[in-house]
């Protein structure tokens, strides 16, 4: 995989337009390569497991805290409008829907984009500017397989698990709040919370998490691999990894919600 080769200055249309298509095709090839590697064993299993562990460790504390607080706050803030109708008993199922369908995948993805994306972007960026990636390349050690494939796979694999974990923690926060106020039993809470959740919701959320995970990993690796200009570039790569991933996550969220809507 080579990304930063400069071709001779001969333009088909104009410098800008050619440049756009050249970089678009480079990006496309970088992403597409993942699916080629998918069918090219052996995989670096040891490294994939290590990366999964890192993704988990990186994001777990922040996800736990955020999920828990979102559960509490969301419950607290929804109560007044429901109690106007005397419908506070609907709280658990409202929270269930909000958390499973929307909050958990999005919140998990955004936090991971920040924590995991920046750390991958910075790590690979630093490897790039110190020529470590080139060193793998010239020793025929397949840097894409070892660095990109493992990290993206780890993100894809871990994101659904983290998403489920976030849901769990958010519901826990919500339960504590509901329990103190409405004295609902755990069994009732669970029954109500899962009442309106169907298999389609679960599927949609897992698909979202997978897509978000792929996006986070791929964007971060791409930004890392295309880092230029020394140490300053490393910071930029980490930053761009987060920002670009977040933009894409919102766009994907919108698209997936739209598509899932057709199936409801």
């Amino acid at each position, binding site marked *: 995989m080579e990304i930063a080769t400069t071709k001779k*200055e001969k333009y088909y249309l104009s410098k800008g337009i050619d440049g756009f298509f050249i970089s678009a095709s480079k990006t496309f090839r970088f992403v597409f390569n993942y699916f080629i590697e998918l069918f090219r064993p052996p995989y670096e299993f040891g490294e994939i497991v290590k990366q999964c562990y890192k993704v988990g460790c990186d994001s777990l504390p922040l996800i736990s805290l955020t999920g828990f607080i979102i559960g509490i706050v969301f419950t607290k803030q929804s109560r007044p409008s429901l109690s106007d109708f005397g419908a506070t008993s609907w709280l658990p199922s409202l929270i269930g829907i909000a958390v499973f369908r929307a909050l958990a995948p999005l919140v998990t993805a955004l936090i991971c984009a920040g924590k995991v994306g920046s750390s991958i972007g910075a790590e690979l960026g630093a490897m790039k500017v110190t020529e*470590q990636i080139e*060193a793998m390349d*010239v020793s025929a050690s397949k840097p894409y397989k*070892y660095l990109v494939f493992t990290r993206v796979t780890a993100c894809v694999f871990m994101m659904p698990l983290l998403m489920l974990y976030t849901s769990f923690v958010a519901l826990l926060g919500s339960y504590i709040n509901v329990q103190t106020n409405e004295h609902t039993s755990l069994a009732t809470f669970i029954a109500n919370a899962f009442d309106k959740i169907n298999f389609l919701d679960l599927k949609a959320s897992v698909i979202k998490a997978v897509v978000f995970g792929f996006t986070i990993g791929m964007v971060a690796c791409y930004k890392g691999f295309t880092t230029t200009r020394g140490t300053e570039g490393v910071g930029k790569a980490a930053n761009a990894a987060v920002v670009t991933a977040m933009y894409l996550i919102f766009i994907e969220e919108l698209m997936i919600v739209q598509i899932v809507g057709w199936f409801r």
Partner: protein
Amino acid sequence: MEINDTTGKEIVIDIKELYKSFGDNHVLRGVNLEVDRGENVVVLGRSGTGKSVLIKIICGLLTQDEGSVIVLGEDVKNLRARELEALRLKVGFSFQMSALYDSMTVKENIAFPLMRNFKHLTKAEVKKRVDEVLDAVSLIKSRDQYPAELSGGQKKRIGIARTLVLRPEIMLYDEPTAGLDPISSIEINSLINSIKKEFGVSSIIITHDLVCAKVTGDRLVMMFDGVVQKQGTFEQVFDSNDERIKSFYEYNFT
């Protein structure tokens, strides 16, 4: 197999009319260079003349705009990914900044290319080959250290060991002695010579260090303005009235 008419030896690297630009920066402007089997060629030249670019093109990290580069009988530019990988196993590249993988220990660094390219090797065999090259660069005791714990000279030697472990036919050294104290430099120079002798490796050595050039080079190549200005033995090259060549010599020796 190409044969050099004057020396009668096999040519392992044959570069003809090589051009490379980055935007408006015309770096290489028609470089011609041949390297025979078992020969150490030293490339000298000012900072920024494109010496690093030249050897990066040789191993396919960069692609030339024009001209041809034939390495071990293969046209580097037109190789497919698999073929390029096979060629790269035979061409070792020692980076200017060592480029050790800093998340791995020394022995993991060296075992890394080995385990990825020779899957049939057992753990014991890998260990044996790692120890072998660590012995060759006399750094056995640093096996379990991380790159951050090594000195510049040690890093260079580990970098060289990491390429040696693949038993290359050609070595490309990018400024092997830059930024090192005289004693480490002497060690590296004798390492380069012993690699040539023991493994029969052909090398291109890029350097600003004329001691290194004199000790390791069978032939010197002087590059200025993106072309080869002069080549020959150390004495031939520096027996010159060209101001730039003279200033090179004077800075190093007077």
